[in-house]
């Protein structure tokens, strides 16, 4: 193949370039360069360089990347979180719980809201973590399936339980043993996210919505139903509706659910698969009913009286966003102290009162009631026993399953 790989421009190309550069401005046309380049382009691109590329395996053996902990000397912790996922004071500049943490421990928290999307963030940190380098972050917060992938790839550090007494004692039982991190060796939940059915009473106009089947089948809602583009939430909710268990299912179950959803798509029942952007559609009434995340619904309900939610009798999905310490993080001990701090019911209550997601901390209720009585009584924020019993988690997927399922699901959503 060597003969097709000139190291420099081919003679005709060089001649064309030289000529076109010299003969005044008219000579340097795109055409002449293109024409000269066409023959040589492939060769210059270098088929040889092509085969030299390749992407090495991303996984690392667990614990193969040791990191030195600088927590004792550097009193900081770098915390990357999702946007609008923490308490903010009235000025909008300070986070009261982080200030309390600093006052108590002397550790400064560099809080960055640089996570917008699990997939995008994964793309962002992948190069460093795959190469075993420091990402500059001591805590990252990722949804459980991605947290599971990072653990599988060996990209995060094992936590030291002795530094996490509150977390160990107060973690809500429903989050204790996810199949991707049994016993929480690598991660602790920041908040839980429940998926329920939300609806706009005015847009429904008397139509009753109680189950996922209503969403998928009721002809009165044609073209005004929203599903979530997050595969696990949408598929999980339909699985529950069909009497299957999202924690234990096989390829056939998945395909059956997909077929059911496909039927609804083909009928034109479903308007869109959305991320967080369903909130404006629902408030406006463009969507009459949709699958929705509880934290959003609490917020929407207080903004527009027509919006409400219902928990289907078959149950609902709960996933968690989890705090992880990536490999090579410089301040693991500080990070663990911060994690533990948020498992003190008092601090968890401060946080829950502000952000309206499911709190993973047991014993928050009395503290939360002192700040916000309504929030404390809201089962979407502090799930009661009955609510907890209906909560389900999606099982973790192998990387092969993940690719196959995501591919099928994304094809169903049109791409």
């Amino acid at each position, binding site marked *: 193949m060597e003969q097709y790989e000139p190291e420099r421009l081919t003679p005709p190309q060089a001649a064309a370039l030289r000529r076109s550069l010299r003969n005044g401005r008219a000579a340097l046309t795109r055409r002449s360069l293109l024409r000269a380049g066409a*023959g040589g382009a492939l060769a210059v*691109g270098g088929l040889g360089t092509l085969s030299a590329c*390749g992407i090495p395996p991303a996984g690392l053996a667990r614990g193969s990347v040791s990191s030195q902990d600088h927590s004792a000397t550097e009193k900081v912790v770098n915390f990357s979180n999702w946007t609008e996922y923490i308490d903010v004071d009235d000025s909008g500049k300070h986070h009261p719980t982080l200030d309390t943490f600093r006052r108590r421990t002397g550790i400064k928290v560099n809080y960055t809201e640089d996570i917008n999307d699990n997939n995008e963030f994964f793309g962002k940190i992948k190069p460093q973590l795959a190469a075993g380098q420091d990402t500059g972050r001591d805590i990252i917060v990722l949804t459980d399936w991605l947290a599971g992938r990072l653990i*599988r790839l060996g990209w995060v550090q094992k936590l030291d339980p002795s530094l996490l007494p509150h977390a160990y004692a107060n973690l809500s039982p429903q989050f204790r043993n996810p199949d991707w991190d049994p016993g929480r060796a690598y991660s602790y939940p920041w908040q839980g996210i429940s998926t329920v059915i939300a609806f706009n009473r005015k847009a429904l106009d008397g139509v009753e919505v109680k189950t996922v089947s209503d969403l998928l089948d009721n002809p009165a809602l044609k*073209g005004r139903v929203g599903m979530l583009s997050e595969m696990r939430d949408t598929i999980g909710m339909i699985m529950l509706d069909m009497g299957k268990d999202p924690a234990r299912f096989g390829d056939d179950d998945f395909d059956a659910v997909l077929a059911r959803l496909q039927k609804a798509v083909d009928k*034109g029942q479903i308007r869109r698969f959305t991320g967080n952007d369903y909130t404006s559609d629902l408030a406006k009434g463009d969507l009459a009913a949709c699958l929705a995340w509880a934290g959003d619904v609490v917020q929407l309900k207080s903004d527009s009286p027509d919006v409400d939610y219902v928990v289907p009798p078959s149950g609902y999905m709960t996933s968690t966003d989890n705090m992880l310490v990536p490999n090579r993080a410089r301040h693991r001990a500080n990070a663990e102290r911060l994690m533990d701090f948020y498992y003190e019911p008092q601090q968890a209550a401060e946080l829950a009162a502000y952000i309206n997601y499911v709190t993973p901390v047991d014993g928050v209720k009395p503290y939360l009631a002192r700040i916000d009585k309504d929030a404390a009584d809201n089962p979407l924020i502090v799930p009661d026993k009955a609510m907890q019993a209906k909560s389900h988690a999606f099982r973790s997927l192998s990387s092969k399953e993940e690719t196959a399922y995501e591919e099928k699901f994304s094809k169903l*959503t049109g791409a």
Partner: protein
Amino acid sequence: MPTLTEAPPPLAPAAPEPAPARRRGRFTPYWLLLPGLLWLVVFFALPLVYQASTSVQTGSLEEGYKVTWHFATYWDAFSQYWPQFLRSVLYAAAATVLCLVLGYPLAYLIAFRAGRWRNLIMVLVIAPFFTSFLIRTLAWKTILADDGPIVHALNSLHILALTDFLGWTAGDRVLATPTAVVCGLTYNFLPFMILPLYTSLERIDGRLHEAAGDLYARPATTFRKVTFPLSMPGVVSGTLLTFIPAAGDYVNSELLGSTDTRMIGNVIQSQFLTVMDYPTAAALSFILMAAILGMVTVYIRRSGTEDLV
């Protein structure tokens, strides 16, 4: 790869090279080219090579990817996603035609009739660029909302019944249909059509119009025989500047569309980020690039404006 050698050298004619006038300036053009070339190599050529390599690899995230020259990826990708390709081309073409129809009269007005308002109108054309692309697209969700004034008007005029019949809209709504996506594309890329049209119209000598009138051409004939042919460079570059980004766009389809309006950009995005099938995503990107390059080449040949662009 034997075809490469058999093809004659693309630029064979060995024109006698004029002797350099001054030796000193001989390398100046190369030095001037250097910054641009470096930029292109680092930010265009290298990523392209990397992408080409990715498209013929196989493997998975955990095992890593190896170059196996698996060209079947291209065929698999195309046979799976040709509807999205076709749709992208159709939507982009529709948006381009709409842009031309809307933009030409406006550019004409600015160039010949606007007088002292010219600068103001130009600013108005460019003004939307001061807000972000996303915000501009999201604004269309309010404009076309189900119980908004536009949809109400269209409904009471029974226009939506007609477009529903044609498959352009669905039921009594516009959002989440092909029409909404094409509207968004048209709106977002309209300035790219108007600006080149304006530049080429503005260059036309007004005396040509007078001359045409003196030769008893009616205004319509003048436009057909004088103005329009002279504005062809603007038309060609305007359509290219609209069509090419519109064909690869995924934001409009994502925000204004539905499951049956997804364009190839959406597929590439989800293959790269969600499915993490990098080879397929890379192959799709290359097919899109090749398809656009092919169509543009044919278009430029046909419109006979190779030297004007």
